[in-house]
């Protein structure tokens, strides 16, 4: 009886830990995309999706945060109903309702906010990042999301750029509110792990 020996290249403990976090943040982003809080009047609903991007950047840094959002987008491409309203598929990422750019924006935004907050590939302790740095990182992420999303919306739907910006404008104050909530969650010590 012959035996086959192949050397197994094990993944390091630290990498496995970051990877597991990225997987769960991706799953959480998908779950939050399905839940929104209705607001009174004509305001758009308060979507919880950007929190996935915020926490990917804050908790995991640019590399692992980027992996988390890349996994989210890829799983949607593969057919799992993880985009808002249970949408899925490569077509939805490429065009969406003109909203495909926002999905790509979330991915780039997670990388940008992670890079600003952690100043390196390895995530550092969030206690070492001051509140202004955290706000600057998340604000940069929001800017990136709109910088990619609005021209994309304009290109897909044929709306002139200023009009596409006007369509998306009501969402900006809500996103800034979410940014404040995300920083408050970190500062409130709600994420301190034993």
């Amino acid at each position, binding site marked *: 009886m012959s035996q086959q020996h192949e050397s197994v290249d094990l993944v390091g403990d630290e990498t496995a830990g970051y990877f597991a976090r990225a997987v769960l943040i991706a799953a*959480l982003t998908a779950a939050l995309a399905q839940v929104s809080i209705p607001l009174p009047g004509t305001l758009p609903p308060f979507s919880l999706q950007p929190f996935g991007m915020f926490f990917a950047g804050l908790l995991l840094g640019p590399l692992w945060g980027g992996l988390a959002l890349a996994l989210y987008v890829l799983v949607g491409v593969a*057919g799992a109903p993880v985009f808002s309203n249970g949408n899925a598929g490569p077509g939805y990422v490429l065009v969406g309702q003109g909203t495909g750019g926002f999905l790509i924006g979330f991915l780039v935004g997670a990388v940008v906010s992670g890079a600003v907050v952690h100043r390196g590939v390895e995530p550092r302790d969030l206690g070492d990042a001051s509140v202004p740095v955290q706000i600057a990182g998340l604000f940069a992420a929001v800017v990136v999301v709109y910088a990619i999303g609005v021209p994309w919306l304009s*290109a897909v*739907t044929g709306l002139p750029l200023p009009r596409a910006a006007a369509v998306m404008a009501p969402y900006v104050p809500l996103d800034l509110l979410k940014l404040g909530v995300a920083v408050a969650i970190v500062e409130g010590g709600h994420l301190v792990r034993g």
Partner: protein
Amino acid sequence: MLSYRPGDTLAHRLDPRSKLLVQFGLAVAVVGYSSWAGLAGATAVGLLAVGTARLSPLAVLRSYRVVLGVLALAPLVAGGALGPPWFRVEPAVRSARLSARVVPVLLVSAAYLTSTPVRETRAAVQRTVPGKPGQLLGVGMALVVRLFPVVLEDVREVRDAIRARGGERRPARTRARLLTVRSLARALDRSDRLAVALRARCFAWNPTLPPLSFARRDYPVLAVGVALTLSPLL
């Protein structure tokens, strides 16, 4: 909702990489050629793709009705004006033509979704992206697909618990904070357990990959994908 259905159509037998390339190419081509002729050509490709998966185009459009409904608003917004004549036809028609480009991309996407199991897309990603990044993306996709329903259930439980305590009356900011903190804490607990499980099962960089190979029928499809991708340069 569109999801994978087992079958033996031509679309089912194609390699996921060829199918993904055609979709990417079609999206590039519709942006490059946004004339009526380009739109007609792209729609023909979309209908052909739906045909190879033996899907009804009308049923596909019905399943995308929310997406299409939102897109239909774009011409109204583009044509609207704040003063007389209140509605201008030319920008509205232009916007309608650009929004219509989305339809063929969605048709091809529907053919892909119904004919490709998630594990094949995972294998395609893992084979296309070399080395450790590809390995992490592949394993990560499989884990996210498995964990998404679990995490969604967690988030819904937290939301119901907040509602049961009269949380509906609190400001959106407070509700968002409560919901996110509790959901995130549960997700992080699960990630700790997942990390332990991965280590216990000897999570390695070099596991055995699912088999995936190009057949003769894939080459014409690949050629179409390459041609569509390069079409704006022609």
